[in-house]
């Protein structure tokens, strides 16, 4: 857990628009160690997903680059498995077949048929989906779909697991449940994880480090917060933990004081009043 595993250097990206190029990200520098759990948090539209997509290789950075284990990332690949926000399971394949597609692609040459079957079943068991593994995505709940999505990503034995708001579309109870599962799995397997989230509690509970992003355009890393809480973490015990609450409030302070997205109503009203009076004066 010491050497640099994944390194983002001066990453920036601009998208061409009819009004000229739009710079979404600028100067993102981040070093991630092996086995580390890093959360990216920020207001919507600040470019969190863009960072993740660049690491995944789905987008190409305009400036700078990403290096994983000494090799530059240029295209997507199974060593950087992605858990998508809306699960993205193939609706015509069962849970088992969805995982199988990934396993066949990654281990098709190394494992025998029986070994692959065991490996698929093992991964589905890891996310507690053994009982419904032959069901199609339409037949299972949102939380279960997301579990299968995680199983599919884990089954690729990725060097980095990239999660794009994996629990964003779930209800609070299911989310808590899946967070606990994810913590257990991560403690077991020691994956390096980058997770995007909107949820401050989720970030503090799961992460070793929280990367807080400033608002776009030209978004970049605002602050990085080390979460020095002992593992395994228990959400009930942590609720009264002083340092947990301290971490929580510092993330909140960053989001709602330093990177205020919405101006308070009073301030907005004042501004528009001013604009009106200045118009009057001009007239």
């Amino acid at each position, binding site marked *: 857990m010491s050497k640099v595993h994944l390194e983002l250097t001066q990453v920036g990206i601009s998208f061409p628009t009819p009004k000229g190029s739009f710079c979404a990200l600028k100067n993102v520098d981040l070093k991630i160690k092996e086995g580390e759990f890093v959360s990216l948090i920020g207001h919507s539209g600040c470019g969190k997903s863009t960072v993740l997509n660049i690491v995944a290789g789905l987008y190409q950075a305009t400036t700078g680059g990403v290096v994983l284990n000494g090799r530059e990332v240029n295209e*997507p690949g199974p060593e950087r498995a992605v858990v998508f926000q809306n699960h993205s399971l*193939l*609706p*015509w*394949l069962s849970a088992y077949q969805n995982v199988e*597609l990934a396993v066949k*692609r990654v281990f098709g040459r190394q494992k025998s048929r029986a070994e692959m079957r065991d490996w698929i079943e093992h991964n589905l068991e890891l996310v507690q989906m053994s009982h419904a593994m032959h069901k199609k995505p339409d037949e299972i709940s949102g939380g279960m779909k997301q579990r299968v999505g995680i199983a599919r990503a884990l089954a*690729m034995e990725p060097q980095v697991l990239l999660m794009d708001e994996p629990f964003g579309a779930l209800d609070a109870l299911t989310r808590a449940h899946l967070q606990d599962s994810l913590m257990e799995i991560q403690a077991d397997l020691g994956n390096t994880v980058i997770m995007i989230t909107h949820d401050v509690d989720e970030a503090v509970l799961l992460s070793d480090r929280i990367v807080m992003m400033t608002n776009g355009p030209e978004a970049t890393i605002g602050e990085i917060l080390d979460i020095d809480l002992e593992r395994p973490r228990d959400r009930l015990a942590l609720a009264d933990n002083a340092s947990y609450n301290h971490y929580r409030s510092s993330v909140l302070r960053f989001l709602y004081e330093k990177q205020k997205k919405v101006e308070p109503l009073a301030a907005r009203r004042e501004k528009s009043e001013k604009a009106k009076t200045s118009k009057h004066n001009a007239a």
Partner: protein
Amino acid sequence: MNPAILIRQKWQRTSFGVAQWQALAKAILIPMVGLVLFLGVWHIGAKQVDTSLGQFPGPAEVHEQWSNLRSEHLSENDREAAFYQRQEDRNAKKLEKNPDAEVRWRDFNRRPTFFDQIITSLVTVMTGFLLATFIAIPLGICIGLSNTVYRALNPIIQIFKPVSPLAWLPLVTMVVSAVYVTDDPIVAKSFITSVVTVTLCCLWPTMINTAVGVASINQDLQNVSRVLRLGWFTHVKTIVLPSSIPMMFTGLRLSLGIAWMVLIAAEMLAQNPGLGKFVWDEFQNGSSNSLGRICVAVLMIGFIGFLLDRALLLIQSWVNWDKSAVVR
């Protein structure tokens, strides 16, 4: 929804109350009323039209001609059976007298009946349609997957799509005559001409709809494919084909409808055997029964077209991964 299913669902309940009667009325009675009204208008309208071939046939006359056509078909079947029976008896007798005698087996020269023409038309339309499908779906997938291929082929598609079968026919006839030259043809030239004309006209809807279906695949699924680095073939098989099946079938249904329409026109114009030729022959024949027989053919053409569409729907619900999808 399919009326049959609707009725079955209603029957499964134990009581047969007002709601059930209403459902029954919706499913059966109202379509029946429509049909009866249509027959009435036809009956009265037909009486007002006098043609050089006599009065325009009403439903009763058409029904009579339908019976005639059936009995003609049956008598032709009898004639054929009798011919072969006679031939067999004759040859058997010959062999009895002299076991080394040379016996000749001749084929019966059958006069194609209305029902024979239907079969010919069906075989032709299916051949043309399948040929078009085998060309259109792979091409449609390529067009949908690649913008470059799309740009290259789009002008050609747009220009050839609206061309009428009647314009193609002379060209196709001449080319087939020039190219298909054998002493021992497996299939008739007229068959090839019809098939090629049908294919040329019904390629386009399948091709365009497949291309649109392929081009509008969910971006997330494409990302999954990219992360897994699926090969081209696996990508097409596991992601492209299943997600574009609904659009593909929309195209196939349009194509089959066009194929059937085009075929009748082509047969009529080119004197290829089939329903189109039947209609044309009756028209040229000009007897007092002709119009009634043509009406039978018109209704039959419509009915077969409807059945073909239903058959394709059935195949779609069988092939489609989403069994809960409502196909109509």
